[in-house]
């Protein structure tokens, strides 16, 4: 044992290596056909029925299966691997065996009526610019926007259209037209009667609008500051309208009280003459209330 030469050792190692490989190599006359994407192998070798008879059939089948599986496994282990969550995963190539589809491929969407027409006429979709060339100032102007701006500057409200002539009006259009007609009075339709079962027109009210979440914060800042100012100041905020109304009511009361006391002193009875007093009081009140300072 001690006299082990280097050559012997090398030969031994080589043999060991061969033995290792032996356990996973399988000899076949014809190479197997692989479709690793489907984990499939086809063995085209002729099976000799004498071999089958000599061994037990089950054992023979198992041995054949083992050899073929070994070959397939060898092929799979050649694939590039990856480590995913403590598991080694081999990426499979695309399957090569042709197999029929389940359903025919999806058909393209049929063209719409407009698309058909456009094709017939050769109309192509293109981006339209709103800008119009202004000869005098030699700049591109957006005419439509300009008109809108003018309207906005003059505070002109463009009225909605009533009923436009058409072959058949839809229910929606009719209701819209009715609502437009109703509101086209001097009092903006305030005193218009409603028909029995007439429904309210939808989407006429104001829409809520929210401040943008990002962008210019100056408006929001101002609001917050104002609020803080009110909260922080010791003096209460003066509501002029409220104050004036209060003042006027007080004056009314005083006047009425003065009149009552005057009347009582004159005639010596409690003021319960309905016609006269009522009229006077109404007049006085009406006269004062006319100049309501709410809107200025």
């Amino acid at each position, binding site marked *: 044992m001690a006299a082990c030469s280097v050559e012997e050792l090398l030969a031994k190692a080589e043999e060991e290596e061969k*033995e*290792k*490989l032996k*356990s*996973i190599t399988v000899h076949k006359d014809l190479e197997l056909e692989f479709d690793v*994407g*489907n*984990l*499939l*192998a*086809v*063995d*085209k*070798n*002729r*099976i000799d*029925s004498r071999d*089958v008879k000599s061994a037990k059939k*089950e054992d023979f*089948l*198992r041995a*054949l*299966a*083992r050899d*073929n*599986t*070994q070959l*397939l*496994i*060898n092929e*799979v*282990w050649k694939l590039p*691997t*990856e480590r995913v969550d403590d*598991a*080694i*995963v*081999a*990426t*499979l190539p695309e*399957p090569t*065996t*042709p*197999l*029929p*589809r*389940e*359903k*025919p*491929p*999806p*058909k393209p969407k049929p063209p719409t009526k407009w698309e058909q027409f456009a094709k017939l006429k050769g109309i192509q979709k293109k981006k339209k610019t709103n800008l119009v060339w202004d000869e005098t100032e030699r700049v591109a102007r957006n005419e439509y926007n300009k008109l809108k701006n003018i309207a906005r500057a003059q505070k002109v409200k463009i009225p909605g259209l009533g009923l436009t002539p058409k072959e058949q009006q839809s229910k929606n259009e009719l209701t819209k037209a009715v609502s437009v007609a109703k509101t086209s009075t001097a009092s903006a339709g305030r005193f218009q009667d409603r028909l029995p079962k007439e429904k309210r027109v939808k989407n006429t009210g104001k829409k809520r609008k929210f401040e943008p979440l990002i962008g210019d914060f100056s408006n929001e800042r101002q609001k917050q500051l104002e609020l803080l100012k009110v909260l922080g100041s010791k003096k209460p905020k003066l509501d002029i309208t409220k104050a004036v109304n209060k003042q006027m009511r007080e004056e009314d009361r005083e006047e009425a009280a003065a009149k009552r006391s005057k009347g009582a002193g004159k005639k010596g009875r409690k003021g319960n003459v309905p016609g006269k007093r009522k009229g006077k009081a109404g007049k006085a009140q009406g006269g004062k209330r006319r100049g309501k300072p709410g809107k200025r």
Partner: protein
Amino acid sequence: MLSTVGQCCMPWLFLLARNPKTKRSKRFLESRAPKLVEDGKSAMIMKGGNTSQLISNVLKDIYALKKPNAVLYKKKNITRPFEDSTSLEFFSKKTDCSLFLFGSHSKKRPDNLILGRLFDFHVLDMIELGIEKFSSLSDIKASKCPEGTKPMLLFAGEAFDTDNEHKRLKSLLIDFFRGPNVSAVRLAGLEHVLHFTSLDGKIYMRSYRSLLKKSGCRTPRIELEEIGPSLDLVLRRTHLASDDLYKLAHRKPKAKKKKNISHDAFGTKFGRVHMQKQDLSKLRTRKMKGLRKRKGRAAVGEQDGPAPKEARVAS
């Protein structure tokens, strides 16, 4: 009236002909609609009018092999697929399955299995197989593979390469057992082996569990353990699709790939956004005392800024 009664009986067909009214039904119809890249095929496994115990067991076992992508019909269906396939086509539409396994038993054809597939809800090919010997999953006492394991499919024997019917049978068996199309596989999960051997006019189907043993090198040595079901089959009648139809079913549509759009595992869409170059001179950074402009200088800068604009307006 009659038509409404008909519609009540088969609401799915009724839906197919109409536009969906709810999101849910729309999703349902979309899942059934033809796709460019198809998902795996699912199978319906059903009994005929008469079945033996053996046939029921076979159907049950094959259902166990195919499980997540299969439907097992519990009741009998009195049809003969080779004579009239309309009822099969009806069931296929109902469950959206394009593979079927039909088991029946009669004096003329004892222990009969019909394996087939459909294309566009019409029978593409069917092959009738007689069972000669069967041992089920429960007969063999061994630990089994987990449900839904993608099997390794092995075919051995000359006939699978030379004989036309055997060739078609091979294609059918691959289609039936291959499971979903996957891009990657866990190496330790390669457990199940289905081996089909054609020998002396018979087809032997064997199912094994593979044991990965150490071999000394990277690739393991394989040992096999039979887990069942194992079947000895004989070929009986066949109904193969005409070449034209077979070709048509194999036609692959060209997938137009949209550029610069990808999806991750959760279906989130990723795209490339083209932005104009940002003007960093106007970037508002954190204000610090040291970096603050002096009052005099700032005023000069402001005057400088708008000056050229005014000039342009004037000209």
